[in-house]
């Protein structure tokens, strides 16, 4: 057996003459590969089958920061938060069996929200595969539907190539989660390894379709002929790093643009052509006018049912232009008149070139009219309530006033999520981090930890409901141990609010198991040595929020809000977007 000292010498030797083979274990070559891929932070939890990797990690503390989470689900959500805030690939480690199965929710979340992740799981020795060994689970088959790609390594010689492919697949094209399952023998296997080579081509994989000008021309012609064009944009703009290209496109064409919650922040909230949020709890104008526009231009979004409402009454009058990097998305839910396949970083500038400069004043005025109605009937009462009960909206308004739109807002799932997406102000891209497609309660706290590592210079505020917080509260331990300066804002309405709202509106107020009690969140936080306080009257709200945001380290603030407030507007399930209700 070689000593650690030998390994260090070999690593140094490698640095001198890059062609020298690296002699070491599969675990070491894995960690070297992570460093080559630019990884600095790993969220993980050790266990039996991944022990050789953790043993090797012991010697890499100066290059790889490992954040010990309190549950593997927390680890993967943190990796997601990291990826979403930073634009890099999130990395997490877990052991075999329960460690790996605990990743499944996060994988599904990352898959549906196109988040680039590389997850490494330990696996039992190759000779034990299929014997129902201790902590053996068929992780590859369990995770197949929720990964962009996965692979089981049983021989250390495969590790470099598989890791390089994993990073390439995770971040290229439409990003997604990748899982590598490594048997313990491969982790321990001593080999001579060649230099690490990054992957940039897989013959069976086309990350982005080649752009053909014909589609661009067809799309431009349609857009130029439109009287009432309307843009819907999603996370594709952010994932494609095409925020500037997108801005140039709308600035020239003068077309009003509305966002899905995954696309929020790609352009600033204050942009004059940003007309707001789409979907079930989106803004009034964008929903109603979806059924009035003549050309609908969808960019990097996938017509989720929460966005479209009833599909057979969705934008039937409009000709649809759909720009997407994933050919499988075009015509999946909504038939496109022109499908522009390609990376919007490439397609948008081409389209901008061909579209006419325009203002669409009358058409924009319609959005403003609807917006005024919404302001009068919904927004003002929510942001400036007159009753004693505090609203979630006024909390968001205060955050906007204090942070000016520069904070990273991480939300959990439920009413507070919809309110945060509706009212939070964003100046910067990658600032709204939420579980959009999967709607994973418990996402907020761990994702905020990851987001803080991904954007260390930003104020990161986790907005979480009393229900969602109780799904992953254990990650307070991670904050305690590693000092991630996350601001945790619990909006407590003492209900599972979104489900309660549905029960009120659609189930005759039969409140079935939505009445949730909570521990003393302040005491809970303090038991983890995290500063905390609680606000139950408006008079103290502003001061408490300022204290939280200006506090040096992590801080938990619990705000008691009205019990039975509802989120409006709302497109009831099964209804058309134009049947959106203001109350």
């Amino acid at each position: 057996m070689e000593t650690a000292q030998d390994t260090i010498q070999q690593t140094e030797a490698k640095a001198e003459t890059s062609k020298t083979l690296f002699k070491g274990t599969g675990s070491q070559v894995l960690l070297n590969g992570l460093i080559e891929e630019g990884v600095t932070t790993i969220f993980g939890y050790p266990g039996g089958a991944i022990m050789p990797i953790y043993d090797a990690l012991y010697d890499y503390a100066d290059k790889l920061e490992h954040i010990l989470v309190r549950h593997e689900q927390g680890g993967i959500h943190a990796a997601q938060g990291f990826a979403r805030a930073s634009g890099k690939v999130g990395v997490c480690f877990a052991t075999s069996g329960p460690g790996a199965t605990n990743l499944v929710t996060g994988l599904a979340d990352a898959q549906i929200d196109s988040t680039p992740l590389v997850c490494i799981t330990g696996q039992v020795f190759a000779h034990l595969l299929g014997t129902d060994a201790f902590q053996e689970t068929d992780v590859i088959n369990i995770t197949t539907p929720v990964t962009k790609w996965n692979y089981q390594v049983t021989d250390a010689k495969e590790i470099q190539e598989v890791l390089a492919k994993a990073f390439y697949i995770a971040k290229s094209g439409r990003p997604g989660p990748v899982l590598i399952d490594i048997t313990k023998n491969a982790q321990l296997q001593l080999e001579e390894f060649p230099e690490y080579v990054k992957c940039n081509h897989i013959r069976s994989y086309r990350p982005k379709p080649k752009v053909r000008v014909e589609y661009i021309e067809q799309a431009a012609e349609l857009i130029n002929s439109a009287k009432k064009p309307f843009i819907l944009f999603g996370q594709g703009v952010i994932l494609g790093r095409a925020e500037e290209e997108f801005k140039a496109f709308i600035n020239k064409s003068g077309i009003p643009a509305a966002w899905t919650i995954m696309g929020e922040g790609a352009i600033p909230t204050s942009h004059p052509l940003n007309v707001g949020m789409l979907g079930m709890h989106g803004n009034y104008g964008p929903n109603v006018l979806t059924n009035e526009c003549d050309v609908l231009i969808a960019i990097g979004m996938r017509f989720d049912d929460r966005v479209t409402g009833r599909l057979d009454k969705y934008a039937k009058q409009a000709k649809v232009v759909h720009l997407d990097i994933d050919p499988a998305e075009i015509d999946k839910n909504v038939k496109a008149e022109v499908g522009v396949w390609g990376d919007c970083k490439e397609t948008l500038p081409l389209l901008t070139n061909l579209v006419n400069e325009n203002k669409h004043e009358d058409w924009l005025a319609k959005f403003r009219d609807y917006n005024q109605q919404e302001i009068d009937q919904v927004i003002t009462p929510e942001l400036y309530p007159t009753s004693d009960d505090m609203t979630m909206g006024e909390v968001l308004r205060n955050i906007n006033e204090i942070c000016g739109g520069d904070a990273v807002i991480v939300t959990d799932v439920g009413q507070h999520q919809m309110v945060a997406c509706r009212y939070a102000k964003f100046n910067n891209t990658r600032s709204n981090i939420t579980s959009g497609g999967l709607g994973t309660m418990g996402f907020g706290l761990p994702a905020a930890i990851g987001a803080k590592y991904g954007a260390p210079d930003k104020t990161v505020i986790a907005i979480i409901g009393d229900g969602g917080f109780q799904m992953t509260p254990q990650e307070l331990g991670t904050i305690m141990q590693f000092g991630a300066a996350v601001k945790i804002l619990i909006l407590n309405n003492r209900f599972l609010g979104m489900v309660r709202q549905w029960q009120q509106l659609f189930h005759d107020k039969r409140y079935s198991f939505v009445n949730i009690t909570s521990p003393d969140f302040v005491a809970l936080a303090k038991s983890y040595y995290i500063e905390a306080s609680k606000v139950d009257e408006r008079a103290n709200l502003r001061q408490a929020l300022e204290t939280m945001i200006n506090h040096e380290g992590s801080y938990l603030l619990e705000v008691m809000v009205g019990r039975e407030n509802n989120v409006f507007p709302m497109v009831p399930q099964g209804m058309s977007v134009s049947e959106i209700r203001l109350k």
Partner: protein
Amino acid sequence: MSTENTIEHKIDKADLDGKQEYTITVYAENRIGLLNRIAIIFSKRKINIESLNSSASEIEGIHRFNIVIQEGYEVVRKLARQIEKQIEVLKVYFNTNDEIIWQELALYKVSTDEIAEKVTVERLLRQYGASAVVIRKDYTVFAVTGHREETDALVKALEPYELIEFVRSARVAIIKDSAGFHEKLKEFEAFEPGEELVENEFLEKGEKIFTM
């Protein structure tokens, strides 16, 4: 070239929602677990696979799946795109029965005594183009290749004469209008996939678009 045209041609003639038999041809890397990845694309949507065959293709190292389902055009197209999205899948085609040449192989085990005794059996077998694979004292195994109806018909015909065992293979199909995969593979192996790989039926219906 031609396969794209076949898609076009289908849009015109097939009832878009009407279910019919489609044969999906998948060219893919030969990798453990890929079959599962493909199969769950169907099971996720609760679509039954009628027949599935996995074999070598004309190119060494490239695998070819034939999958038969009963579905409408729209559904099949979405499935094809989801399959093609899988990392190790190179290309997916889907065709109606008139666009492919296809065969299934069926084996029939019949009592040798029955054949010896009854002339009709022998005539039947000849009529269906069956060939003897094994002849033993106790039983004989015949093989028939053909379409489903043909192999089914012989099962029915043999029912009165002690059909001991019957089994039928999955469908294998060749697309009439295909030039094979050699040229396509070269494009895939090239660093930047060429334009040929970007098939988009929108391009072919330009005249239908600008009607505003």
